[in-house]
């Protein structure tokens, strides 16, 4: 699984950082930052799905590889 962040769509709601801090950080302005290269280990797949399905701006997407 791979998680993608569209920084143009992100408005800093910080839902991803709250739900999946292993995958997302926030910068000094509260904007989301993807940690690593977006590759999601199997134990974090549920958190990645949560982050995606709670983003009000649809800025996070998930692909199989």
């Amino acid at each position, binding site marked *: 699984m791979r998680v993608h962040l569209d920084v143009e769509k992100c*408005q*800093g*709601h*910080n*839902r991803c*950082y*709250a*739900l999946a801090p292993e995958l997302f950080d*926030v*910068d*000094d*302005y*509260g904007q989301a930052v993807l940690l690593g290269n977006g590759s999601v280990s199997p134990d974090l797949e549920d958190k990645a799905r*949560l982050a995606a*399905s*709670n*983003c*009000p*701006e*649809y800025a996070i997407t998930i692909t199989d590889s």
Partner: protein
Amino acid sequence: MTDTIDPTISEPLALSDSPENAIAWERVPYNAADYGPVSDFATDFDHADKEYNPNAPEVWKELRDSGCPVAHSDRYGGMWTPITHEAVQDVAYDTENFTSRSVVVSHARPGDAAIPAPIGVVPPISSDPPFHNLARRLLLPPFAPKQIEPWEDEIRALCTRLLDEMGDITPGDTVVDAAIQYAQHIPVNVIGRMLGFPEADEALFREFVHNTLETINAPTADRQENFQKLDAYLDAQVQDHIDNPREDLTDYLLNVELGGEKLSQEHVRGSMVLLLIAGIDTTWSAIGSSLWHLAQTPADLERLHDEPEVMTFALEEFLRAYAPVTMARMVAKDVDFHGCPMKKDDWVLLPFPAANRDPRVFEDADQFIIDRESNRHAAFGLGIHRCLGSNLARLELKVAIEEFVKRFPKFELAGDVSWSVGQIRGPRALPVRILETA
């Protein structure tokens, strides 16, 4: 009203244009007779009708079920209200056709002597691109998650103190007002401390908020007078900070630079107005609505008490189901929107709380599901004006509910609830009977 507006609904309004050098102007002269009880929200929408806030979810459902994505009203000199998530989002994302120049609907509109777009009187909420991004970036850092997290202990101590001040509680007998004795004090105390204003002025802050948001039909001259009082208060606080510098948000605003220069006096004052007004009855309303829900839903109260970790999802469900904030825009230029012929200077309400109840985006949208896992709610808005204080609001709401439920594991409604009037929705009086104490 799915495609076009039926011209027989009402006579066209006689609209005037803004006179020169006016701070505020009335497009249609104010007449109290135009603001009676609403009979049909599709064609005569009025969010300040006193029946609206107590019954808003039913109003939205009725409008959606009748196939009306955008309601209209001749009130306030012409106002549109998108109801569906799609329509609300389309307005929020469209900064070309909709300006943020004024975000509080009233019968008066900002005139050309008021600070014009793209800055507006309360930047950055009143600002449009490209200025908006500059003004917003100044205020984002102090409200970023990692700057807000350290406030948790202080907020918890404040909530504990408010609960202590309720005095002796006899379970099954004592009635407290969760809005008046609890919710209303929390955000006002925190933002006052962040700005470095005297704690003794909290009641005054609530008066400023009330005057701005709940007296939208007061005569324009009275509203201007109220705004001047607020400006005078802030000028005095600014002077005090200049005379006695200390580390707080006011000091930050006085010293931060935009393009190599300090902010203008109007910008500093406008941003202070925004922080003071926007941060208070919004969160107070969210706390009140959440406790109102728990007072009537023993199963959710029990789950939250016995299983505190459900708060991760419950917090967002409170925000979705009871989002307090409806924003507004003005039409920047004539535009056809979802079949509605919108004219320049028409008001457009942005009811994010209605978008949060749209069944096309949320399963069982009118049901409160305490562990709802997928929740793209728009309580803090959508697009470039996402609530600047959302991290603080979330923390205050979470801590306020946690502490109340920890102290009072069981409570129930104990009388009539009174609701706010206008764009911010929440209980203003919320009597609850305490049934069990920790």
